[in-house]
C-alpha cells in the first residue's frame, strides 16, 4: 500500500467536528419492495475539511446528502451540526444541486442576493455583500443577466455564490459539475479549490468521478451499494495544487478504482422482492 494513501477507517474522532453522522440508515419502501439505500453510515467532518463522497450510482450518496441537508429524515441514526440535531433544511447547511436550481425570473445578482432577504440586513450592506460575492465568482459583468442567458459553468458559479453569501457551516455539493463538459468541469474544480483556499468552508462533495475526487479531496469516503454504506475512509495526502498528469495522481486513481470494484462485489443483494423470494 502506498505510504500516501492510508486507510483510516478506525481513526479517532477529529477534535473539531462540525458535522457528526452516527449510524444513519435509510430504508425505502416502494410497493412490495424494501430497499436499504443506506446502512449504518457514520463519520465526522472536521472544520475546513474538503471531503468527497465517492461511489457508483445507486449507492445512496445523494440520499446521504439529502439527509444531511434535512430534506429527508433518516430511518435510523442521528445527524448533528455543531452538536445540535439536524431535522430540517436550513442556511447553515447549504446545497449546490447538480441540476440548474437558480430562479429563472431573477438576474444573476438577484439570485445571489436571494437568501439575504429577511436577514435584517440593510439594503446598502446587502448590495455590498452581493457585489463582493459577484466578484468572488468573477461574474460582475453578468450581474444583470438572466440564468438562461449564461453558460452552465456560470450558472454553477452563481449557485455557489448564492449559498456562500449565507456563510454556511457546511457546504453540501451534489455532483455539481457532472452536467458540465470536461473542460468546464476542470475549470470549475480549480475554481472551487481557489474559493475554498480563500474562505476555507467545510465541504462535502458528492461525486462518481474518481479523478474529480482525487483532485479535490482531503479525504475520500468510498461508498458501495446494496446496501449503501461507507466501505473506506481514505486520506488523500497528495500535495496541492494537484496535477492530473503526474504518476502519483494516476496511482491514487488506480487505487480508488480497485476499491470501488471490491466495494461493489462485496455487497449482498438487499433490494428484495418478497413475492420472488
Amino acid at each position, binding site marked *: 500500500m502506498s505510504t500516501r494513501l492510508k486507510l483510516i477507517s478506525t481513526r479517532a474522532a477529529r477534535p473539531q467536528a462540525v458535522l457528526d453522522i452516527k449510524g444513519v440508515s435509510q430504508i425505502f419502501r416502494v410497493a412490495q419492495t424494501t430497499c436499504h439505500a443506506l446502512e449504518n453510515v457514520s463519520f465526522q467532518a472536521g472544520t475546513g475539511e474538503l471531503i468527497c463522497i465517492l461511489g457508483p450510482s445507486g449507492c445512496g450518496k445523494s440520499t446521504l446528502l439529502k439527509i444531511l441537508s434535512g430534506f429527508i429524515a433518516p430511518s435510523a441514526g442521528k445527524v448533528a451540526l455543531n452538536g445540535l440535531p439536524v431535522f430540517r*433544511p436550513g442556511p447553515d447547511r447549504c446545497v449546490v*444541486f447538480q441540476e440548474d*436550481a437558480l430562479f429563472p425570473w431573477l438576474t444573476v445578482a438577484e439570485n445571489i442576493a436571494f437568501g439575504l432577504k429577511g436577514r435584517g440586513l440593510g439594503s446598502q450592506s446587502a448590495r455590498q455583500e452581493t457585489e463582493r460575492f459577484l466578484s468572488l465568482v468573477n461574474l460582475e459583468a453578468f450581474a444583470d443577466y438572466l440564468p438562461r442567458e449564461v453558460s452552465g459553468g456560470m450558472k454553477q458559479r452563481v449557485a455557489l455564490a448564492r449559498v456562500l453569501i449565507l456563510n454556511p457551516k457546511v457546504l453540501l455539493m451534489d455532483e455539481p459539475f457532472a452536467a458540465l463538459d470536461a473542460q468546464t468541469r476542470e475549470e470549475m474544480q480549480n475554481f472551487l479549490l481557489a474559493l475554498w483556499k480563500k474562505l476555507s468552508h467545510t465541504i462535502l462533495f458528492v461525486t462518481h468521478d474518481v479523478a474529480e475526487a482525487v483532485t479535490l479531496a482531503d479525504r475520500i469516503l468510498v461508498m458501495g451499494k446494496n446496501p449503501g454504506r461507507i466501505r473506506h475512509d481514505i486520506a488523500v495526502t497528495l500535495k496541492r495544487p494537484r496535477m492530473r498528469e503526474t504518476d502519483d495522481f494516476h496511482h491514487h486513481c488506480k487505487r480508488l478504482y480497485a476499491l470501488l470494484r471490491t466495494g461493489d462485489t462485496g455487497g449482498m443483494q438487499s433490494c428484495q422482492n418478497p413475492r420472488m423470494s
Partner: protein
Amino acid sequence: MNDRTTPYRLLSWIIPGALIMTWWMVSRCGWLPAYLLPHPEDIAKSGYAYVFGHAEGGPYSGRFVTDVIASLARVALGFSMAAGVGVPLGILSGRLMWMDKLLSVSVNGVRAVPGICWLPLSLIWFGIGMKTTVFLIFLAAFFPIYLNAAAGARAVPAILLQAGAMMGVGRIRGVFAILIPGAMSHLMAGLRLGLGISWAYLVLGELTGVPSGLGAVIMDARMSGHIDVIIVGIVMIALFGQLSDYLLRCLLRCLFKSARRTP
C-alpha cells in the same frame, strides 16, 4: 426573427383588411340587402354617432360612455372577484393534496354545467342587472383562473422549493418569492382566459333587459331593427376585450418581475 419589424406587423392586418374589402365590395354591388349587412360606411357613421354624438342626435347617439362604464364596471367586478378567489384557491390546491381532494369533485361538477344554465337561477336570486351579470362573470372566469393556477403551482419544479428551503425561506415568503413567480406563465394564461370569457358572459348577463351596457345595446338594437348598431356593439366589445387584455398584461408586467421576464 423580430416581430417588431414592419413586414411582420403588416402580416397580422392582411386578413382583417381583406375581410373589410370583401364586405365593402358585397355592399357596393348590392349582393346582400342592407337589412342583413349594412354598408361599412353606414356602420362607421352609426359608430361615430354612438360614440361622439349628442344625446338628442338619434336613438343610440351618445350612449357610448354610459354603456361602456356600466359594462366595464361589471367585467371589472366579476373578473376581480374570480381572480381574488381563483388564484389563491388554485395555488393551494396545486400544492396541497388535501385541498385538491377537497375541491376537485365540487369544482369539476360545477364546471360541467354550462354557464348559461345559471342565468335563470341568478335572475331569481339577484334580479335583473348588475348583480346577475357580475355573478355570471365570476362563475365563468373562475374556472380557467383556478385550474391554471393549480396547474402552475403543481408545475413549479420541486428543486426550486428545495433551494428556497435550504436558504432559509419560510412558507409565507416561499409562496410569494418562489411559488407565484414560478407559476407565473400559467397564472397569466389563466387570468387572460378568464378575462376573455368575462366579456362573453357580460353580454349574456346584459341580454336580460338591463338599461345600459354594450350587451344591452346589441339586444336593444335587434329589437328596434338597427343592424348597424348591433355591429357597432360587436366591434366595441372586440375592441374593449383586446384593450382589457393588453392592460391586464401591462399590469402584471408592472407588478411582477417574473411576468416581465417570462420568455
